[in-house]
């Protein structure tokens, strides 16, 4: 972010300037031109999050002009976070995609000088849940059997998922270990590039437990090659997931919601922030949006404004505690 501040500021100002002009003309708090930054390369989860807002707002006629989706990969979201905190701090037309993974990175101090208090947390439009998955021919029928075996033979059972050590995928494995009175440090965790590779490794019995997300398991459930021992949700999910017990039901108090939400710059006016909250609430209640959300494999979640802000900050605090416990903070 320190590379070319003048140019950045100039372009930022231009955007803000034009936004202000439009705002005045229409006496609106949110400019007509809106933008969502996906802090990743095209095609990933953040892209999906931005498109959920962009397509949803357009299909429900809550915006008149299509929302622009731009990409700002780097630092697992840190580059975009710094950008919003340093350059486009008060752009009323800009939202940035975030998820549980961003909260984890904030907790680990991976977003540089900025912490979770810096931005205005707008809200979440959907959520996915973690899942504990084993192969269909694995010896464990439920979470308790797995945990008992894990205690006796920690070296025989390897966990794996699509994220690095310290990522939200790893957190799921760490929390499960913790709930069974094991130290996450003793866990054998294998970091793959994306959930697909980890799933392949599970099917080939290279790893024994995959800590994935419910939505990415839909096709596998039908295929009958895997067994989901637990979903990390508050309660059982419906549809194809109805038979999957929660971890809490089985006596392991672990929940892992992967929310998909947005934040705005720290200096965005209260009026614009409130207008966005109302707009997002309206979107979340629209049946057209429910269809869009389901098509992306997401479950409903409606937390906006202060409610969401508190939620994210509590999460960050909780993750900080966990990270310190296992010696991950820097």
């Amino acid at each position, binding site marked *: 972010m320190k590379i070319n501040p003048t140019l950045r500021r100039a372009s930022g100002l231009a955007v803000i300037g034009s936004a202000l002009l439009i705002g005045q003309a229409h006496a609106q708090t949110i400019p007509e031109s809106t933008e969502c930054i996906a802090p990743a390369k095209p095609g990933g989860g953040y892209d999906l999050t931005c498109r959920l807002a962009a397509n949803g707002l357009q299909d429900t006629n809550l915006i008149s002009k299509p929302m622009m989706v731009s990409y*700002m990969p780097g630092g697992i979201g840190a580059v975009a976070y*710094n950008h919003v905190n340093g350059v486009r701090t008060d752009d009323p037309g800009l939202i940035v995609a975030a998820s549980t993974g961003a909260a984890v990175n904030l907790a680990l101090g991976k977003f540089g000088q900025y912490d979770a208090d810096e931005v205005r947390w707008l809200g979440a439009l959907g959520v996915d849940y973690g899942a504990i998955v084993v192969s269909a021919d694995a010896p464990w029928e439920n979470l308790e059997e797995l945990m008992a075996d894990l205690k006796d033979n920690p070296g025989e059972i390897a966990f794996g998922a699509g994220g690095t050590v310290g990522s939200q995928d790893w957190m799921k494995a760490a929390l499960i270990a913790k709930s069974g009175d094991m130290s996450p440090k003793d866990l054998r965790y*294998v970091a793959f590039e994306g959930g697909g590779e980890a799933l392949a490794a599970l099917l080939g019995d290279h790893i024994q437990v995959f800590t994935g997300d419910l939505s990415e398991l839909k096709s596998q459930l039908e295929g009958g090659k895997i067994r989901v021992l637990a979903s990390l949700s508050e309660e059982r999910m419906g549809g194809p997931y109805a038979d999957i017990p929660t971890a809490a039901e089985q006596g392991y108090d672990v929940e892992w919601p992967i929310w998909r939400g947005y934040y705005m710059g720290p200096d965005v006016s209260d009026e614009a922030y409130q207008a966005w909250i109302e707009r997002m609430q309206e979107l979340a209640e629209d049946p057209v949006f429910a269809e869009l959300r389901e098509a992306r*494999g997401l479950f409903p979640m409606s937390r906006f404004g202060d409610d969401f802000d508190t939620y994210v900050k509590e999460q960050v605090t909780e993750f900080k505690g966990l990270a310190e416990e296992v010696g991950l903070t820097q």
Partner: protein
Amino acid sequence: MFDFLIDGFGVALTPLNLGLAFFGALLGTLFGALPGIGPINGIAILMPLAYTLGLPAESSLILLAAVYTGAEYGGRMSSILLNVPGDAGAVMTTLDGYPLAQKGLAGPALGLSAISSFIGATIAIIGLTLFAPLLAEIAVMFGPAEFFALMIFAFSSMSVMMGKDPIKTAIGAVLGVLIATVGIDSGSGVLRYTFGLPELYDGIDFVVMIIGLFAISEILLMLEHAHRSEDDGKLPPLGRVFVSLKEVIACKGAIGRSGLLGFIIGVLPGTGASVAGAVSYTTEKRLSDKDNTFGKGDMRGLAAPESANNAAAVGSFVPMLTLGIPGSGTTAVLLGALMLYNITPGPMMFTERPEVAGGLIASLYIGNVVLLMLNLPLAGVFARVLTIPRWVLVPAIAILAFVGVYQLHSDLFAIYLMLIIGVFGYLLRKLGFSLAPVILGYVLGGLMEQNLRRALSISGGDVGILWQSGISLGLWIAAALLLVLPWLVPKLLSKKSREEAQQD
């Protein structure tokens, strides 16, 4: 058994879908030809468009698959014409493609690579149709340990590229491996060589690396020559336009073997067109480079990686269609596209949504023919690109690349990084290093390290896991043979011939 394919052809041959396959092939070729936009970005850009247009699932999948295969065709153009690989799979294509163009054989080189691409892809599509479910079972047998052994095999097969300066080749490869270590270490979550810059957390992007290393260094070399000599404007001769049947037949072995090899590598989740290109080139060089002409404009050295990278692109559909597991970044994006239509790929897709599975496979057949028809006649047109002076052409490509990279990163850091890598590449070239080992070290080294770390986290640090399975043991032995045989065989042969001489 092949009902789905017959249905599929019915779907793929409707005017709309045929038109989309054609449109996708054309766009894909363009995306591949422009350095900076690869198949992943091409598909990610088009996906929301297809969805917004309200295309049915099979149609948008046909469009996106055509873009994907088209990009593998297109990637070779700037490799051959400018010595700048258009995408990851086309790195090896520069090695013989560019020298061919310099000899005035740009037209035939483009034509031959189109035919190789066609045959390689066709081999893979047939493989996909016949053996997909079986292959998927074998693919999941490859775990981290097996992948590590495969990378060892790939590196030892690179030894054939040592050429006249083995030390420099080795140093180049090691430099590439070093660059691959930048970023968050996935095994421990620790930041490596990021110097407190969040922009480096995710490592150095492949596109940034390739444009910097190849295109920027090329411009710097040209700048230097412009100040020194008069003959800068001299263009390579533009010879004949079409490849002859004789030349194609001379490459039949290279094309066939590489197609098969590329397909197998593509099927494995996690290895794609770049690995396929590297392994097939080095294998072919070992098998057929009797007169040491590879790297100097040998048609076979061009045909091999082109056949392999297209075959690999098709191969990566196997785990996606049969297991619902994306075998490459590009198929991961395609999988996302399917999810949007509420289709979950996997074994059930062939029975539940045969029009999608069959339509996709049929469209691969059709798209491939379209691509050949599109690319063969165009070879002559594209070869004319070389009549543009290089001092116009290369900067123009660089500008396109700058725009492409900026578009993908929304960040000037990537541009600066690209320039730094360009200067680095220029210095390497001045010192007589070849760039291919650097880029291969970067691609293979990253995969090798990750898989080594994964294997060791599974075993808890016991290195025995690395040769425990039959597959990995076989790969280790093959790798050892690759290193020992070239040294051993001539000795044995000369001994034998000495004995024979004595008998005479």
